């Protein structure tokens, strides 16, 4: 085969190799294991739970408790169906504007002694690209 093809194959192999290695050994600052719903987080093995994670869920209504003096906000997130509630403590008081009962959120932090300690709470930015249904009069 020609030189060009050889180079292309070599480059692709190197690239693929790097990707695989880095993927399998994924850790380090700035990387988070992502859980698409609270039930997958709840059923994860204990060794995984201690790692930096992001968990996607919905805020259970009536559970938001802000403590301005102590500087944290406690709430619970659960699956869309309401199953598998996870207590969360956000280590700050400036929750995003969209954060409220029933809001779709991703919490970022790690799990410790029964509570998810969140350094960041990201609430769904009102999506321009999602069709909303529901009649209004």
């Amino acid at each position, binding site marked *: 085969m020609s030189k*060009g093809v050889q180079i292309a194959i070599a480059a692709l192999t190197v690239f693929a190799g790097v*990707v*695989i290695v*880095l*993927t*399998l050994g*994924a850790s*380090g*600052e*700035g*990387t*988070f*294991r*992502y859980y*698409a719903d609270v039930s997958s987080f709840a059923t994860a093995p204990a060794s995984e739970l201690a790692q930096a994670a*992001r968990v*996607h869920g919905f805020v259970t209504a009536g559970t938001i408790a*802000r403590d*301005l*003096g102590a*500087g944290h906000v406690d709430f619970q997130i659960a699956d869309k169906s309401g199953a598998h509630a996870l207590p969360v403590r956000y280590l*700050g*008081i*400036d*929750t995003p*504007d*969209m954060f*409220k009962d029933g809001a*779709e959120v*991703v919490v*970022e932090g790690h799990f410790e002694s029964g509570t998810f300690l969140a350094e960041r709470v*990201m609430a*769904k*930015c*009102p*999506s*321009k*690209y*999602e*069709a*909303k*249904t529901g*009649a*209004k*009069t």
Partner: protein
Amino acid sequence: MLVTLGGLALPLAVFFAFYAGVIAAVGALRNRPEFVRSAERAVIAVFALLVLAMIGVEAALIGDRFDLAFVAQISAREQPLIFKLALWGGQAGSLLLWTFMLGLMSFLVVLQNRRRNRTLIPWVIAVMMVNVVFFGSIVSWVSSPYAPLPAGQAWSSGQGMNPLLQHPVMLIHPPILYTGFIGMSVPFAFAAAALITGELGTTWFKTTRRWALTGWFFLGCGFVLGGRWAYEVLGWGGYWGWDPVENSSLMPWLAGTAFIHSVMIQEKRGMLKIWNFALIGLAYALCVMGTFLTRSGVVQSVHAFANAGWFGDLFLGYVLVLAVGYAALLIWRVPELRSQTRLDSMLSREAAFLLNNYAFMALLAIVFYGTLYPVVSEAITGHRIQIGPPFFQRYVGPVAIFLLFLTGVGPLLAWRRATWVNVRKSFVWPASISALTALALLVFGMRRFYPVAFLALCAFVAGTILEEYWRGVRSRMRRGESPFTALVQLVRRNRRRYGGYVVHLAVVLMFVGFAGAVFNLEETKVLAPGEKWDLAGYTVEYRQPRPVSSPHYAGAVARLALYQHGKPVGMLLPEKRMYFQQEQPTTIPAVWSGIDQDFYVILAGLEPDQRAALKVYVNPLVNWIWIGGLVFVFGNTLLLWPTGSRENSGREAA
């Protein structure tokens, strides 16, 4: 009536585009110029029809046509008119805007090339029409702004545009970004046409130089605007989150920056022909991939958690078809593209440009990797791993430093081979400034490596730019011109070079702003009315809260008096609002800006007993980013200003 007309015009435009593309290709293959002329007329028709389609949607929005699903989604009866017109606030409207811009650019290209590039134009039309057909089809039949509400629903008003988006910057940010993306499609079309026809010389990029530069310029403006909006509105004190949607516009820009530099090498030395073809293909593929990432939900983003399944696959398929097709064309022509020239010396401007390209490719790889990692990791390990800002900051930093260095060094090196003597002579002054800056920073207590290195390098680059200007002005003054005339003439005669230096200066200023972020301060405190808070040389006195209201919202403002070093500087009024229509709370930050830093405060919460929870960010040097943005606009205006000569887009001075 306008709405109905627009609804008919849209699919009609797609049909005409299909016709134009096919007949242009046939005309080229069968050597029938009259077919090509027909294709050109069809392109004009496509544009006219798309104008009608746009007018129709705007008419629907102005006319409160809530029987249309799209209008019901993004508009509301009491929404201010100017925000009603912003049809890009929803999926269907933004896709229509994309298609319209494609039509507009195709029209302009046809107009520009009425008497030129007759070999290339048929294929340029064909490629651009492929784009119009793809996006136009989606807008006509998959996600249309003209689609009615589902049967049985009737809305008397709409959901309304999100209040966060009702901001002047957000009015122009999407159209500017789209102009950038689609501006890139023109050089791409010419490149594809060049590969198809075998006209592999410099014509294809010389003729589209302005298009590439304009697209690149608008993309850059898009980021700065987006960052400014995020900073002013979102209330987290930052301007860039390394979010996949943000990254998806950064990536084509990185490829584009590499491209506009490396084409200069091809022009001067005939090298890098294959590379330039590949680069523009990459840049455009990244543009389309950007729309894919944004709309498909394949990567989670704070911008949208939508999960659109097959809709995203459409775009993915399109990117792949484009990429594979273009790559095939390129591989076919590789034997004819090998250059005869070799790199003469590592100490030359070509070498600096090459390194510049490697650095941008490295940046691109980092951003690409970090953005798509979640998809790859899920595909390989079954588990999704997400990447946050620390990853990007860690790896982008060193590459950015290297690029800064090149920005200073490159223009001082001669083509082919620079001599050490000349290099030393050119470097003395800027290097001294740089060393002095570093020394001054260290003396004033800044001990962290990255900021000192960054700022010292910024001083270096600024020094080289000033030196270049000084040399140019001085040599003209020797011929009798006054300093002012010399400066003006210098820039007029060598727009690309001296305009380019201004753009480099803009980037330097922005880097100064980025460097300041290392020293950002963030503090939270709860204050009762009358209490004071001292931090970072400022004192904040919380006077009292007041209610605020408007027809669209109600809320509260915390009236804060700000003092710096004991002297009163003004009132800060951070608010918390609740917008009725969308039932959405919004935090409005209050900022006190200075040339050295920003004092940025948000009202995180207000208790019934009137205690206010305040979050303060002190952001040093952040305003240099926006200042740099203005200089960026100025520099690019210099570069892109019409030179007044008809034949000029083929050849430009310096």
